[in-house]
Every structure is written in C-alpha cells, then in structure tokens.
C-alpha cells in the first residue's frame, strides 16, 4: 500500500498529514459526496426495515461506512468535526439503553419481557412505510449501537495510534473491530 500516490495539496485543507495516501482530490470529493447519501440510505433501510430488506444492523453499518470514508479521506480531526462522530460512544450506549428499555418496559404492565405493542391483530399507525410499533424502536436502538460501536472503535483506535506515534503497527485493531 506504499505504492499509492502521495498526498496532493488541493483546495480541501489537509488536516492530518498522516492520514495516509488516500487523500487525493478524488477520494475527498467522493467521500464528501457520499456522506449524505450513505446516511440517507441508512435512514431508509432503518425506516423500511419492517417492510423490506434490511434492519437496524444493516442501517448502522451503512451509516458507519459513510462516516468511516470521511476518516480515510480527511483524517481524524476533520472527520470528528461531525457531531455524531464525536459522540459515537455515548450514542452506542444510548442505543443499548433504548433497546433494553423497550425490552423491559412490558414488565411494568405485567407482560413478558420483549412483548411488543400494539399486540398481534390490532391496528397499526403507518407514516408512509414506517410502522409505529415498539419493535421499530428496538431496531433503532440496535442501529444506534452498531453505528456508535463501529465509529467509536475506529476513532478510539485512530487516536491511540496517533498518540503511540506514527509507523508503530497496531495489529490488534483488526481483531477488535470484527466483533
């Protein structure tokens, strides 16, 4: 991978000189252009989850890929200007909390854990394709967790790698992130 073209100085500020060889103009343009569509597609997958293919997990991964592209293209500091990236780890735990909340709430009404409302057979309110049922909220929790996990882990490793110095290999990063 040393064979890539060296960083070409251009109009877009080169925030991190160590961000690697992928910081050409093309990748940056593409990365910036792709961010919004990626997030939109993720939102679409999430919302349509109960009607079509896809679920919280896929949506989380797509959104995370969009953000990770920013990391590759611009480096950490530039990427972390996005608020969702800065708060990725709290976001992950908020997602977990939401899912656990949805799972535990039925206990208050004397139902079994993870009973979804409204119950089978009753009417559901639709907003377009979005169904207003608690299962979707559960899925949103999964989405937040997956997104927060992927982005949070990468940003944590990016920072650890920076503080450990350039060129020092951190071979474990791959292992951790495949979870």
């Amino acid at each position: 991978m040393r064979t890539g073209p060296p960083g070409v100085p251009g109009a877009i500020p080169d925030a991190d000189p160590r961000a690697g060889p992928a910081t050409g103009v093309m990748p940056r343009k593409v990365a910036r252009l792709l961010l919004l569509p990626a997030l939109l597609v993720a939102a679409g997958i999430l919302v349509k989850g109960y009607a079509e293919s896809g679920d919280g997990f896929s949506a989380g991964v797509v959104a995370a890929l969009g953000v990770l592209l920013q990391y590759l293209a611009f480096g950490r500091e530039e990427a972390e200007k996005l608020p969702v990236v800065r708060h990725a780890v709290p976001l992950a735990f908020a997602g977990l909390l939401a899912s656990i909340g949805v799972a535990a709430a039925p206990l208050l009404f004397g139902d079994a854990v993870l009973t979804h409302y409204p119950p089978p057979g009753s009417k559901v309110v639709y907003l377009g394709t979005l169904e207003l049922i608690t299962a979707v909220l559960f899925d949103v929790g999964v989405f937040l967790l997956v997104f927060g996990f992927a982005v949070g882990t990468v940003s944590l490793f990016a920072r650890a790698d920076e503080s450990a110095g350039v060129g020092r290999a951190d071979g474990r990063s791959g292992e951790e992130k495949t979870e």
Partner: protein
Amino acid sequence: MLLPLLAALLAAPASALAGRLRPSLAAPVGAVLAALAFGAALWGWGMGGGAIDAAWAPTWEIRFAVAFDGLAALYALLATGIGFAVLVYSSRYLPLHLEHEGRPESDATAFYFFMLLFMGSMVGLAMAQDLILLFIFWDLTAIASYYLIGFDRHDPDARSSALMALLVTGVTAVLLLIGAVMLRAAHGTFSLPELARVVEPGPLLTVSGFLIAVAGLAKSAQAPLHFWLPRAMAAPTPVSAYLHSAAMVAAGVLLIGRVYPLLHKSEVLLDCFLVFGAASVLVGSVLALTRDVLKQLLAYSTISQYGYVVYMFGLGGEYGVAGASFYVIAHALSKSALFLTAGAVTEATGEDRLSRLGGLRKRMPVLAAASGAAAAGLAAMPLTIGFFKDEILFGAALERGPAFAALAVLWAALTLAYIWRFWSGIFLGTPGEGTHGERELPAALVAPVAALGALVLVGGILVGPFETLAEAAGRVSLAVPTPVEPAYHLDFRPENLMALAAYALGAMIVLSRPAWSPAALGFCRLGEKAGPERIYDLTLRGLNRLSDRAHRAEVRDLRSRVAAILLPAGVLVGAGILVTPTAGAYRVGELRAGEAPLLLALAAAAVATLAATRTRRHVTLALVLSGAGFVLATVYAFYGAPDVALVAVLVETILTLLFVVTLKLIPYEVLHRQAELPLKRPRRKALISAVAAAFAFAVVWGALSQPAAEESVAQKLLRLTPEAHAKDAVTAILADFRGLDTLGEITVVALVLLGVATLLGRGGTR
C-alpha cells in the same frame, strides 16, 4: 415474620453506607442492627413463629418459602446474638489489628459489611424452606467467608486459606444443588416440607441425601474435608470466633437438621453420619492435643465438637436429634468465648503459642474467670450448660448400646483434656517467655467474653429456655416431639457414672501426656504426609498445571489459536458423520436451467478461494478473500435472501477495509519479508484442509438432502410474521421473535466497546 430476616439482611448495606460516610460509624450501626435482628428473632420466637410462602420462579417451581420455626429460631438467635457480641468485640479489636498491619481505618468498612452479610445470609439460611433458596443463602455465606478469611489480603497465606475454604465449601455446595435437582426431578418440588411428606426410602433418597449431606459435612469441617478450618484461622480473630463457632460450621449441621426429615428415612445415611462424626471427633481431638498455636487448637477442637453433633444426628431418636441442637447452642457459647479469649490474649501479649504463654491469671483475672467458665462449659463440668450437652450425648449413646456409650465417654475425656490444655496453658503455671508485653486489655475485648461466660453459667442453672429452643429445633428435624429433660440428678444413674468416668479418664490423659504424645505427633505427621490436605494441594497444583499448559498451547501463535477452535469442532463433526446412518442421506438433485447464474457464481467463489491458496502478497490475499466473500453475497441474492445478501455485502466491505487498513499499519519491509518466507510443511497443510473440507462438504450435502417433513421453524416464523405487523421476516425475527437474543448480542457489542475504550485509556470520544 420476615422481621428478623429483614433486619439481618439490611444490616450489611446499612453498615457499608454508614462506613462510607464515616468509617467509625460502620461498627456501631452494624452492632445496633445485629441487636435489632436478635431482638426481632426473640420476639418472633415468642410469638410462636410463622411462615411466608410466595411464588418466586413459578415455571421452575421455585418458591420464596421461609418459616420461623424452632430450627430457624435456634440458628437465627445464635447468628445474631453471637454476631452482636463479636461485633462489639471487633469494634475494639479491628482498629488495633489494622494498626498492626499498617492499613487505613477505612478498610474496616469492608470487614463489617462481610460480617453482616454473613449474618444476614445465615438468618436466611436458617429460615429457608426451599432447597434452591437454601442453596442461594448457602453460597452467600461461602462468598462472605471468602472475603473474611482473606481479609489480610497482603498475606499470601490468608489468600490461599480463603481460596481453600471457598473451594471446599463451594464445590460441595454444587453437590447440594445436584441433590436438590435430583429430588426435584423425582418428586416435582423443591419445597422441603412437601419433600418430607412424599420421599420414600430407596437408592434415589440415599444418593441425593448423601450429596446434600456431604455439603453439610464439608461446611461443618468434618473429616476428611476438615482441613480448611484450621487454615481458615488466618482470618482476624473475630472472624474465627464468629464463623468457626456460631456461623459457618454451624451452617453445616443446620443443613443436616433441616433436611433430616428426609435423611433419617435412610439407615445408610445415618450410619454415614456415625462414621464421619466419629472420625472427626478422633482426628480433631488428637490434633487439638498436639497443636501449639491457640487458634489452631481451638479449630481442631471445633472439628471434634461438630463431630459429636454429626454423630448424634447419626444416633438418631429423640435424644440424638434434640441433643444435637442443644449441643450446638452450648458449644457456640463456649467456643466463641474461647476464641475471643485467644484473640484478647494475643492482642495483649503479642504471642499466640501455648508454649510461650502461661501464668496470666494474675494479670487478667476477669478474662481468666470468664474463659474458665467457658472452658468448663466445653469440658461438661456441672453447673455449666455443657454438663447437659454431655448428659444428653450419653443418654443418646446408651440407647444405641454399650459400645457407643464407651466411645462417648472416651470423647468426653479427650475434650476435657484438650480444653484443660488450652486454659491452663494460658492462665496457670509460671509466666511464659512471651508474656512480658505490658499492653492493657481494653474493656470491649473482655466484656463479650464475660457475657458469653456468664451465659454458659446461667445455662448450667436455668437450662429451661435453652432446652425449649433445642427441643423445638429437634421437633422440626424429627417431626415428633423430642423431650430431653436435662436436669441434675443426685443419684447413680448411668449418665452420671459416665460423666464421672469421663472426668477421671480426662485427668488421666492430662497426666499421662509424656506417654502418648509421641504417638499423637506421629499421627499428625502422617496426616501432613498423606492427609486430605495434601491431596487437595496436589489436585489444585495439577489442575493449575493442566490449565497453564492448555493456555500456553492455545495462545502460542495464531495458528494454534485457530486450531484450538477448529480441531475440536472438526473432531466432533467427524464423529457425528461417522455415527450417522448414511443410507439415503446424500441425494443428487437435478439441475434446472434457471440455476445457471447461481452455479456460475459458486464457480467464481471457488476460483477465488483456490486463488487465495496460491497468493503470497498480503494485500492481494486480502482482496482475493473479500472477492470470494462478495461472490457469496451474490449467491445469497440469487437464492432469494436479500437480507442475508445485504448483511454479507456490508460485512465483507467492513472486513476488506479493516484488512487493508491493518496491513497499512504494518511497515512495508516487514510485510515484504514475510511474503518471501517459504511455506512450511505444505503437504500437511493441504492434507488437513482437504479433510476439513471433505467433512464440511459431507455435512452440508447431508443437511440439504433432507428437507424437513413437518412445518419447520422457518415456516412457522414466516407464518407468524404478518401477526407481528411485519412484511420482512428477517427483521421480525431479529426485533421480535428472537429479540432477546438480539438484546444479548448488542449487550456483548456494547461491552466490547466499553473494553476498547477502557483499554485505550480514555473513557469517551471527547
């Protein structure tokens, strides 16, 4: 009726909270709550007890069933009453102890927390009527005792002793659980009163009862599982006084008393009690006669005294069962006083060896008198509560026959001998070398001993209340009234003659010490060489070595780590294939024209996989592998599984990126050098791969050849999907049908994230 239990269970957190505010508050708060619990237990006993039975986990028929019956009252009063005395004592002892050890005052909070946790779980254990509830409190006591024995955590000896106590009582606790589950499987209930009604004598009762009894015997430190108790003396003295007189060891006989309605239906089990009890008395007495360290002597005497109790349960009958309970009371009062005496003496002189102590009666007259009363109680002197415990023992033994009676006399004599050795060694004779310290004894160290000693004397005159308690406990164990009627009779009935014989024999043993002491020492040495403690040590070390070896083999390099997973999996799969009947298991279906793209995609995946074996450059390898993954995603899409295809594409993308980024972090020269290295043992690798692939192929082929005849799980879920308001079955499965699995999985992911954040040293993404 929950009042004693509530007070006792609340004591631990309350004291910990108080200790958090001010360390000096932990002891008074704990002591007050212990006193409250004691008062509540007395009151509850006076009101005639009661029971609470509530469904807890109804699907498993586990009930939160507690009752404040005679047995519960006895042990709850012991645990809270002696707990109170010990807490008062610790409030003075512990600051001194911590000062000696150079530890901060705040460490005391943990001590009180675990003491009170122990007290609470002991009260719960005494009241539990459900085997699972019993097991939970049982394990709670083990956990508390682990932290208490290992309180001096800087001392490796204390740590290994705590571990030993935990292992011996914890492993046997599993036997209790197994026994409980066996009874549940046969009779459909964990409830002890119900079990007592339906259980019939037979092999099932013998086996399950034996398992439960082993847990009780180990907790009561009965031979051959006695060795943890002397080692547990590494704990601070109040712990020894509490755990090893009133609580931990008492829990064992409490369990036996609680399940006695079941156990006594089996003659074999009663005979087991006789054997184990007798062995413990013998081992404990002989070793107590040879120990030099005060607390060691007392520990072995505890083993032998609880041997009596177990023996009396084995004798059975009204006398045996009520007598066992009475014995527990008398012993707990005396023995805790003696432990506290040992602690006070050591604290005042800095010496804990009998051979370096002596002649302290002039310097500590009150302590000498109080512990003298306690010692007399243990030695069954008239005018102490202890006299009656031996009277009942003799009575129970006489019922069984002359041989049992002779044994009982011998044991009473041995008790007299070692207790005399303890008391006279400290207080009589010429002052020993170690007694020149000039420290004053604080009143709080003497007062609890005096109170307990006074109780021993009161019990010797007014035996009524203690007797009522013991009889009530006996009634629970035997389900019939158990009148024992202890009293002084000034005539020549057999019990009195046996007591006199025991005194005479005891005096002879004391006087003839030179004659038997080499033999006793030889017995000790034999025990050290080939005793159960040695077996425990060897087992523990062997297991440690095995674990180390397995660990080293697994983490040696990446290959062995992968092999550690794949090899057992491969062996299991291979074994599964070999034992499965193969007739009709493998069918070759026909090929339809529409499946050509699918076949093409599979061929592409195969080519990519084969190419991966020939590639040397790392980056190329990563790309080839991900190529195979993407092709497989296409296969899913062809198969009509868009959800799976989507996930596969996403996962492949992430994996590819990770591979490439990771490779980028490794210096180019290193990668290059690695790529140039020759392949080691290529033939062996090819062979292993071929075998593994053949097995995998056979399994998949076999599975696909046999479509499920009935409605499969997948079909059922598909049918249910519209009811969950879903049009996409996969999402419905993830969020609804298998939502609990998803919840578990995302929790694991969150934990990994937490781990990453913690390991990298920053708590967030600020």
